């Protein structure tokens, strides 16, 4: 399985994502933002970081990179696109996902463990999880407060597109403990076609017990399993 990892100026989770991919036993290729091909990737990861310094709005400038045109087409043809942290912000700015990510209610950057309840296993990214599983995955962001208009929120829930929700370690609603104050404690969503996932937490930081949690591996495994099922997606090359 081949994962393409996008690199924008200011991206810093690229190496971590590539490391997690290789731990999962797959191949990672770096995709430079000025290129407009995807190196034959079966799944494209838009990693975390501060692309373009998060200036103006997080992800607002990266969204126009030549690479993103290829990603748009790839997604339109059903290719798996996985936005993590800054990648989620880019996907929202690019309108591949609804809503927006805004400054944490605390107005502070937060780097700490978070607990995510799997709300839908009906996505290529959570296929090998069970609904209700609670995954320990760290957050590390200053602008991760998910917001969307009421109708969008209703649709997301109705269409089973809220994939990950912040909960407590015990799996209860986070309430005040929310790392960022996201509406409905949303941590990750998919698009209607369910092939584009955006999430704020960093699964690539939770793939080894040595680092405190290996729960993030479930997502990488899921992607691989799904790609196997559908017969590895013919990358845009």
């Amino acid at each position, binding site marked *: 399985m081949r994962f393409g990892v996008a690199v924008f*100026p*200011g991206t810093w989770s690229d*190496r971590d994502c590539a490391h997690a991919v290789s731990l999962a036993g797959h191949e990672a290729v770096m995709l430079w933002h000025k290129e407009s091909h995807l190196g034959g990737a079966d799944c494209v990861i838009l990693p*975390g970081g*501060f692309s373009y*310094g998060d*200036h103006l709005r997080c992800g607002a400038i990266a969204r126009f990179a030549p690479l993103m045109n290829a990603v748009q087409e790839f997604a339109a043809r059903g290719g798996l696109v996985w936005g993590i942290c800054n990648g989620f912000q880019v996907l929202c700015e690019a309108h591949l996902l609804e809503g927006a990510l805004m400054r944490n209610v605390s107005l502070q950057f*937060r780097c700490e463990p978070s607990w995510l309840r799997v709300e839908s296993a009906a996505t290529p990214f959570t296929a090998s999880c069970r609904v209700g599983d609670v995954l320990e995955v760290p957050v590390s962001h200053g602008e991760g407060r998910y917001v969307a208009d009421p109708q969008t929120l209703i649709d997301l829930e109705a269409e089973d597109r809220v994939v990950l929700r912040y909960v407590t370690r015990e799996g209860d609603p986070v309430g005040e403990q929310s790392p960022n104050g996201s509406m409905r404690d949303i941590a990750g969503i998919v698009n209607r076609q369910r092939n584009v996932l955006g999430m704020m937490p960093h699964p690539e930081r939770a793939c080894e017990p*040595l680092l405190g949690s290996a729960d993030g591996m479930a997502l990488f495994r899921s992607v691989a399993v799904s790609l196997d099922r559908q017969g590895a997606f013919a990358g845009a090359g």
Partner: protein
Amino acid sequence: MTDTSVIPPAHVLAEVALTESEYRLAGESLGRAPNTVELGIIGALWSEHCGYKTSKPLLRRLPTTGPRVLQGPGENAGAVDIGEGLAVVFKIESHNHPSAVEPYQGAATGVGGILRDVFTMGARPVALLDSLRFGPLDEPHQRYLFDGVVAGIGGYGNCVGVPTVGGEVYFDESYRHNCLVNAMCVGIIERSRLTRAVAAGPGNPVLLVGADTGRDGIHGATFASAELDEATEQRRPAVQVANPFLEKCLMEACLELAGDPRIVAMQDLGAAGLTSSTAELAARGGCGIEIDVACVARRERGMTPYEVMLSESQERMLLVVRRGDEQAVQQAFARWDLHSDVIGTITDTGRLVVRDGALPVADLPLRLLIDEVPLRHPLAKRPAGIDAVLAVDPLAQTPPWTPSDALLRLLGSPNIGSRRPVFRTYDHQVGDDTVVPPGADAAVLRIKGSRIGVALTTDGNARYGVLDPRRGAEIAVCEAARNLVASGAEPVAVTNCLNFGNPEKPEVFWQLSEAVDGIAAACAALGTPVVSGNVSLYNDTSGVSIDPTPVIGMVGRLDDIDQRRTPSFAPGHRIALIGPTAAELGGSEYQRLAHGCNAGPPPRLDLDLEKRVQAMVRAAISGGLVESVHDCAEGGVAVAVAECCIAGGHGCEVEWSALNDASSRGLPSILAGILFGETQSRFVVGFREEAAMRLQALAKADEVPLIELGTVGGDRIRFGGVIDVSLSDAAAAHERALLAHG
């Protein structure tokens, strides 16, 4: 002006920080009077910041060599061999004054500067640490500085994607008008790819890369600027706005090029900007350098050659490139959307020559600028009042609180309580290598594809140093080493930042000299050479100097990452105190809180015992005899044990005869001294019952005191009959310590 006997007006010399005699020296060596730009260049390179004219003679006393040392002081950062062909590159640096003026930007640009020192050596920065000092946290302005500095450090480190894994924060009156912001950066590189900033090859082009040059950080020297008016100062920003995004691109581009044969040398631009970077680069290579300021991209119009040469604009790098490869290298930077210009060439003249297009601007021998820095040897005088202060008997003061009450107050002290409100705002994980995150004694990083681990810490409790600067410095080194040992590491090498007042005061120079001797003695004893450092003097406001504050950054090494330990107690484990105990309250945090003073003798330190204790604890760890380890620092044994309880989420039952004696004999201050005194060379460990005998035997063999204190368990922290608090109360006090109105 060509006549060297004509001395410029006092204000001119003042603005370039030169004395009359220094001016004469320069003139004689030059055989003529320097012009204004040359004067500025000489002033900058002869300044304390670049020329270390006061501290250099002292720094020669530090041990700087050892089997693992690959690069000692003198380069942009030090480097040590940690095995498997890998080197750790590290340095600490201060950004005190800018942070006092604008906490966010001052701290942020400080982080930027220290990052450049490390990637200049070709090493990828893998960790940052920050050592901070402020006035009392309950004062709104100090809270403003603290919040701003922490936000600035996070703002920069989080954006460039280098984890901030450790540091320290202290609050003390002494820093009310001079906060301290020291940042340490640690990088890792294959030994063979280590690059040095040594210019070579006359005819090789010199490249300036990164930010455009603006009128940043140019102090004084109004005489040298276009018009002599108020407006000149107006046009000069008091502080700089950091650009971590630009730094991130600069870092990635430089790391791509490091070790590339087309790159002859790399040098970051720091204090005195182009002036010091060009001069040092050329001097290290024993060659010369010629610069055309007209080729330097400007941020503002109307800049004078003087301003261009002395601008301290951030996020800039200087490279010497193999002749003929300049375009290829410029393209490599352009790939990262970085602007670069060829601004000069390396020569064989041994001179720094500056042109503005065709116009000659400056022409100075590097020997004058670098080797002939006139050293200052100020008077050193032991402060008159110190003996009276040392004569105070800390045990003569009656404790105002019960031991339980005192423990909760200490846990809730801003100098002891949880630092989580700080480090939760720092990305301390990016890079996927942080195995022991902030919150324990030292941070531990793994190295992918290897069993080796790297442990990092910064330490420096200035309260001891006020009482005895030499012992204070020795203790700082030993505490840093203890923090590494507690994490399971072998201490390897040291970087240090000497934060002091105005050295022209004999008392301050004495403190500085004593502190350097203390660092030297402790580093020699522990076998941890000093490979890099930084000096920040003149931390004075209206005649009042800060307490002497040597901050020690130390790097340790674990053969096997699985040897790491943390303070967390596990239920059922036995608790032991390793090391001596004496009722010493002088300089303790308890004394500050309970009696509002800092007096009496500071804790004793026996370097030989220190060595034995550290060796014994390391042996206990490698022998698998101890499960949790924590050093005793501020707050003494009681706080150390409580911290292990809080970290592990379990209470404890401590039975300690010394306590019962003291309380039954009705000696409350002795009791406080035993519980909260800061006797050095101690660790609190948790171990399995089965290991007890072997642990005892090991201590005996190494002639190290060891007392079994009790057992981990329950939801209360109990010390015999004298302390009984609930774990949740203790944890709450600890967690709240740094929060507003906490």
